[in-house]
Each structure stands twice: as structure tokens, then as C-alpha cells.
């Protein structure tokens, strides 16, 4: 059996953590956007406050006071991250901490206010500022560095990214741990089920049951196994009792029959009826015990399928010759299976016996055994009356009697026993499409290499 890896539980754990990661990242993204918007608003209001101060001075004493204020503020600029520039009518610098207007920036005519600020970059630093051409042709620039804001936002982004990485790593670990925990509990149950399937109905989990849903499942399985074990034992006892209670009176009948003086033929006929009756419940008991043991390897040993097939085919050869049947067997040597020699012989004997019984003089019976790539392929074909397609499945049922059986003795258990024995050995049974007659193929699992 292939060992199940905790795929389902791992998937579930990973799915849940992925969902949690998406939620928390979404929350962080919203927070980030709010922070960015707030920082931007503060930038603008600081710029606006600065401009409002300058505007007040300009209103009082025009360019002169503006120039003084700019000189004064430029001195403090390295700390505040501000840009100031006031130019004269001919483009000469009157005041400020830069020498010329940055390229691409055209001062718009107007007063000193904070409407429509423009973003620009100067020597790698982002700025937000206002460029105006004051009355009389004096270009002016006031701008505020956005670097601190950008840095704060970049730090936030890095933090979010790191958090996401840590979350993914943590959820992988948590998912692996959770699936390992679940798998350990489930593995116990799987091992138990394997043991039971292998035929050990008395197998139970060691140790106490935990007080959780796994414990409850284990308790349920134990109760179920107890019940199955009880039923199996009862069934076995019933079979033995039937065998005993029916055979003992039959034995008395047989004993009394032996003592009877009379027509030996009539006595032999009654004797043979008794034998037939016994054969019916022998077959029934064999079928149920083979079915009960199906799936497990208990009681099976390595045997040569080739040899058993050859022995049974040789056992029936003279019988077929006496009936003038064409009888051929092509048996590849060395096909081994894990099996019960006597049961396999009984399976083959039932099939060959049937074939001989239904065939008429001149018909052919072919037995073949070959080693296929995955399984040993045994087939028994005859050119007898065959079975109509509609009845092919039914012939394997207990007490099934197809139309062809009416005139031939039998109890209809032969093929049911064949199927039960095949199932016991893990072999697959298939009725082949044949132009004429009945053709059955049985594919047997090969002996595991380590047992060869």
C-alpha cells in the first residue's frame, strides 16, 4: 500500500494560513494608503503655512521684505529641507538657496498661495513646491523636500514585506506541524486498518484513547472491529455446527446403509446421493471460508502455479481422451504465486471438469498458462455449447444453473467456488469473448520478488 502523505491536512492548513495572510496584508495595505495620504496632507499644509507667511510679508513691503525673508529662511534650509529662490526681472538671483529654477519648471503668473503645487525632482530629491511669477516679472520658487515622507513610506513598505515573508514562513511551519500531528493520528488508524485487512481481526490500537475527535474515531473503530470479530466467530461456529450437525446424522444413515442387504446398485445410488449432498455443503463452507479470508495473505505460501496447472491438466487428460476431446495444455514453467495448493487445484479441477462435462466428442479444450508483464495469465477455453452473453455473470453466483446445465449433473456451486478461490488469491476472473464455447481467463498476482 502506498503510504499516504499528509496532503489533505497540509492543504487545509496552508489554505487557512494563505487566507489569513491575504487578510492581514490587505489590512496593512489599507493602513499604508491612509498613512501615505496623511503624510501628503501634512506636506501640503506645511508648504501652505510657509507660503502664507511669505505672502503676508509680500503684502506689506513687496519684493524687499520677501527677499529678506527668503535670505533668512534659506539660512535655516539645510534643516528644514526647503528650497527658496527669488529672481529679479532679468533672471538674476535675488535670494534663495539655489541658483536657478530647476529645468522644466515654468513659473505661473499669480500671487503667493499654495494652490496647485507641482512635484519635481532636483538632484535626486523629490520636492513639492510652488513656482510663481510675481507682479513686475519676479520669478519665485518655494518647495519642500518630500524625502523624509518618502523614506518613511519606504520603511513602512519594507516592514510590510518583511511581515509577509515571516507570515508565509510561519504558516508553512504551522501547516507542516499541523499536518504531521493529524497524520500521526491518522497513520495509527491506517496501520490498524491494514493489519485488519491482512486478516488480523484482533488487532487493536495500543495505549489510551485521547479525549478528542480522533480518540472518538478510534473508539468507534474499535467497537466496529469488536462487532465484526464477534460476527466472524459466530459465523465460524455456525459453519462448524452445520458441518457437524449435518454430517453426523448423514454418517448414521451411511452406516445403516452399509448394513442393509439389498440391491447393491440401489445402495450405491443412495450412497452417491449422500456424497453429493456432502459435496454441496463442503463447497458452501469452502466458499465462505475463502471469502472470509479474502484480501489477507494468511495461510498462503509460495507455490508453483505451473506445477499445479500441469498436475491437474494431467489428471484430467485421460478422461478427455476417453471422451474423444481434443485436449491441449500449453504451460509456461516457473509461474509462482502466493497461494494454497489444494484450493488452486480445486479451482482448476472445477473448471476442467466443467469443460469436459459440457463438451461433446470432437470439441477442443485448451489450458494455457503464461507469464504476463504484470500477472500470470491462466486461461481455460473450450469449444462446447458455451454460455449466452446475458448469463455469463450469473454463472458465478451460488446455485446458478445456466440453460446448458439442465441435462448435466451438478449443483451450480462449481463456478461460485472458482470465483471465491480466485478472490482469495487476489486473482481476477474474466469471461472472454469467444466465437464458440466458453473461455475463462484468470490473472494471478505474481509472487513478490523478495519471496521468489
Amino acid at each position, binding site marked *: 500500500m502506498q503510504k499516504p502523505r499528509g496532503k489533505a491536512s497540509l492543504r487545509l492548513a496552508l489554505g487557512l494560513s494563505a487566507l489569513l495572510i491575504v487578510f492581514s496584508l490587505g489590512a496593512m495595505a489599507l493602513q499604508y494608503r491612509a498613512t501615505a495620504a496623511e503624510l501628503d496632507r501634512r506636506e501640503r499644509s506645511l508648504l501652505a503655512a510657509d507660503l502664507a507667511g511669505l505672502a503676508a510679508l509680500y503684502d506689506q513691503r513687496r519684493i524687499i521684505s520677501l527677499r529678506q525673508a527668503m535670505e533668512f529662511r534659506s539660512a535655516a534650509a539645510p534643516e528644514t529641507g526647503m528650497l527658496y529662490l527669488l529672481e529679479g526681472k532679468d533672471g538674476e538671483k535675488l535670494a534663495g538657496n539655489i541658483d536657478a529654477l530647476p529645468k522644466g519648471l515654468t513659473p505661473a503668473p499669480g500671487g503667493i498661495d499654495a494652490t496647485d503645487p507641482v512635484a519635481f525632482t532636483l538632484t535626486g530629491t523629490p520636492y513639492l513646491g510652488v513656482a510663481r511669477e510675481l507682479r513686475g516679472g519676479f520669478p519665485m520658487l518655494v518647495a519642500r523636500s518630500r524625502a523624509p515622507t518618502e523614506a518613511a513610506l519606504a520603511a513602512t513598505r519594507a516592514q510590510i514585506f518583511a511581515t509577509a515573508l515571516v507570515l508565509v514562513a510561519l504558516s508553512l511551519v504551522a501547516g507542516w506541524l499541523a499536518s504531521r500531528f493529524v497524520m500521526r493520528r491518522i497513520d495509527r488508524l491506517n496501520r490498524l486498518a491494514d493489519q485488519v485487512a491482512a486478516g488480523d481481526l484482533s488487532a487493536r490500537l495500543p495505549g489510551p484513547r485521547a479525549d478528542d475527535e480522533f480518540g472518538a474515531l478510534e473508539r468507534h473503530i474499535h467497537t466496529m472491529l469488536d462487532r465484526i470479530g464477534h460476527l466472524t466467530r459466530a459465523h465460524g461456529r455456525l459453519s462448524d455446527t452445520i458441518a*457437524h450437525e449435518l454430517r*453426523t446424522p448423514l454418517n*448414521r444413515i451411511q452406516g445403516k446403509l452399509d448394513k442393509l442387504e439389498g440391491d447393491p446398485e440401489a445402495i450405491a445410488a443412495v450412497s452417491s446421493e449422500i456424497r453429493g449432498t456432502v459435496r454441496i455443503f463442503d463447497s458452501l463452507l469452502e466458499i465462505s471460508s475463502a471469502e472470509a479470508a479474502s484480501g489477507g495473505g494468511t495461510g498462503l505460501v509460495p507455490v508453483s502455479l505451473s506445477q499445479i496447472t500441469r*498436475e491437474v491438466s*494431467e*489428471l484430467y487428460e485421460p478422461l478427455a481422451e476417453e471422451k474423444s476431446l481434443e485436449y491441449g495444455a500449453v504451460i509456461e514453467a516457473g509461474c509462482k504465486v502466493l497461494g494454497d495448493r*489444494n484450493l488452486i487445484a480445486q479451482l482448476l479441477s472445477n473448471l476442467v471438469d466443467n469443460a*469436459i462435462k459440457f463438451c461433446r466428442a470432437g470439441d477442443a479444450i485448451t489450458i494455457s498458462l503464461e507469464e504476463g508483464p504484470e500477472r500470470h495469465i491462466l486461461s481455460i477455453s473450450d469449444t462446447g455449447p458455451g454460455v449466452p452473453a446475458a448469463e455469463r455473470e450469473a454463472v458465478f453466483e451460488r446455485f446458478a444453473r445456466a440453460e446448458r446445465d439442465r441435462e448435466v449433473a451438478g449443483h451450480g456451486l462449481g463456478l461460485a467456488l472458482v470465483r471465491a478461490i480466485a478472490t482469495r488469491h487476489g486473482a481476477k476472473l474474466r469471461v472472454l469473448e469467444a466465437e464458440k464455447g466458453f473461455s475463462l481467463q484468470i490473472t494471478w498476482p505474481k509472487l513478490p520478488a523478495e519471496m521468489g
Partner: protein
Amino acid sequence: MEQTAPEALQAETAPRILVVEDDRATAETICEAVTSLGCEPVVMRDWESGLKAAELADFAVIVMDRMLPGGDGVDAIAKMRGRGSRALVLVVSALGTSGAKIEGLEKGADDYLAKPFDGDELKARLRALLRRNQMVVLDNDLMAFGDVEIRLKARTVHIGQTHVAVSPKEFELITFFARNAGETVTRMQLLENVWNLHFDPQTNVVDVHVGRLRRKLESAAGRPIIITARGEGYVFAPEA
């Protein structure tokens, strides 16, 4: 065969056969068969006393039921052997599926007969076991019955100067017959001992094999070698 014929037996040397069987009617049938073979039956009705009897006295054969009050007869075999009993064990049981038979044989039974059984079948089995007790040398090369010679190593059969060609299976068949020469051998015994098959096939396949061997032997010897016995089997009677 002289040894087992009733009239040739001295009363004190009559082999004793222990019958462990809880069903009265069946025990009676078995006792009759035992008596008719010139042996002395001792009947025990449960597992414990059967085991005790096997310990106290010396028996040639023990006929053992399986589902006895007190236990499974098959489980008593190892115990009996452990306590020194050298008796051969014939299990006679209602557990008659091939699986049960093989289990019995594997657990030490020398033969296994399923109920319901035929009186002749039981007698044939008992005779074969009694004979096995008396057989001293089995592994010498030659088995000779008058002019019929079976060479075990060469696996050949000769009648007078004539070599009779037999198939390997037919050789095993005639060897089994020879080991039970003069006794009735049943079809079931042949199937179990020569073919090692422990189930009852629907058709009497064995008959055809015996028939072939019989014809071969008869045409070489000019007289019947294997004769059909009344009831259920054949007798190998080469010196008739």
C-alpha cells in the same frame, strides 16, 4: 495380508485400536469396522479421557474425532506424541473441507477421513495404517510380487521378462498399490496419496487412470493384476 486376516490372529496379539468419538452411533460403526479387521476396539467419549487412554495403553491406531467434548481431537495428537504414544492417528471428523483435512494432516494426523464415511472406506484406511505399522523395510530398491517386479530407483515395472512402460503418475500409482498389496484401496485414498489432492472432484477421474494402468498390466501379464473391489475401490492382487 496374512497378518491382518482375522483367522490368522492370536487373541493376545490382536492390535488394539483406540476410538475417541462422542457420537454413540458413529462409535459403534467404527467399532464394527475395527472388529471386522480382527482388532480390539477401546472407546473413549471425550477429549480428556481419550488423551489419558492413549497415555496408559499401547495402541496400534487411534481413531480420533475432532469436535469432542473438551477439545479438538487434532490438538490432542501432539500431546499424545509428546507423552510417548507411537500410535498412528486416523482423524474421522465432520470438519471435512479440504482446508480442515490439510490442517489435520499438518498437525500430525497420519490420515484424515471426513464424515459421513463409507464403512469400506474406513476399513481400507485402517488396514493401510495397520500395515504401515508392520512394514519394516520400505526403502529397498525392489518390490517383487511373484513375476511382477517394481524397481523403485529405476522407476520401472517388469512382469516376467516384459518391461511395462508406465507414465510417472502410473508408476506412483502402482507403487502405492504395491505398498497396500492385497488390500482394498479406495479412490479417495488414491487421490489423496498419489495426487495429494484433498477434495472430492465431481467426476471420478481416478478410475480412468487406474483403468489405463490396469489394461497395461493385464496385457503384459495375461491375467488381471488390479481388480475392482466390491464397493469403493481396487485391490492389487499380482499373485492371484
